[in-house]
């Protein structure tokens, strides 16, 4: 996912003013992108103070390296990568809490290899706005309940839109490990959503 950007000419102009060190331009950058960067940081860091710290670190890092920004990427995409990185750095400084093992969240099988609980169709179409809002909260809550190592891979790949190699580099794991963790994280998320979304059996 990329952040929605101002028009390209607007962005180029802002970049020019940043490179010239114009005080007002720094503030404009923060006001234009701050809310969206905060939304990204909150997905990785559920504690608000941590998310804000990550956004602050991201902007300070962006200010320092703005002269290295190359015009061939969008400013918004560049900032998105910086805040994702700042959020992961922040996570590394947090004490790890004991968490559920991913194995316990995967589908169960009978001895003959069939599902213990066969999957049902889901109802996710034709929801009214209140139901959609509830669904959105449920998905976010379920993502946050995944073990951290798997949650981060799912966030990077399926939500922030990074490719396997980019995610591997940021998490300092192999591309193969990214793929394995992504598939398991999706399975675990599916299991969490299933009881809430399965179609009611015909009465």
């Amino acid at each position: 996912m990329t952040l929605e950007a101002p028009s390209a000419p607007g962005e180029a102009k802002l970049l020019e003013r940043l490179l010239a060190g114009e005080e007002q331009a720094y503030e404009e950058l923060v006001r234009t992108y701050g809310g969206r960067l905060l939304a990204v940081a909150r997905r990785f860091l559920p504690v608000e103070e941590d998310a804000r710290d990550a956004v602050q670190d991201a902007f300070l890092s962006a200010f320092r390296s703005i002269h290295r920004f190359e015009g061939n990427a969008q400013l918004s995409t560049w900032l998105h990568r910086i805040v994702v990185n700042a959020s992961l750095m922040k996570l590394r400084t947090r004490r790890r809490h004991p968490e559920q093992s991913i194995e316990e969240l995967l589908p169960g099988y009978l001895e003959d290899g069939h599902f213990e609980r066969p999957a049902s169709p889901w109802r996710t179409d034709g929801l009214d706005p209140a139901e959609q809002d509830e669904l959105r909260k449920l998905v976010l809550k379920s993502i946050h309940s995944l073990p951290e190592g798997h949650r981060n891979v799912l966030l990077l790949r399926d939500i922030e839109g990074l490719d396997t190699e980019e995610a591997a580099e940021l998490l300092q794991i192999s591309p193969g490990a990214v793929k394995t963790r992504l598939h398991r994280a999706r399975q675990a998320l599916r299991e969490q959503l299933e009881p809430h979304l399965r179609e009611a059996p015909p009465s």
Partner: protein
Amino acid sequence: MKCREFVEFLMEYLDGALVEQERSVFEGHIEDCPACVNYLATYRETVRLGNSVCTPDAEVPADVPEELVQAILSARRQR
């Protein structure tokens, strides 16, 4: 093929990474197994939901808290 193996190869199937023979075994299993048809559909739906709940449109905070703006600008000036 059993459901367990079906799930194991599911992501590679969706990524188009299975070779022809593996794909035909995989697709043969779907034809016979309604539980795996449902699993495939809801796995895809899981990926879609994760993606769609986090689009900028779905996100409320377009504004950045004023105290955060001030904290960032003040930290910049102190560098």
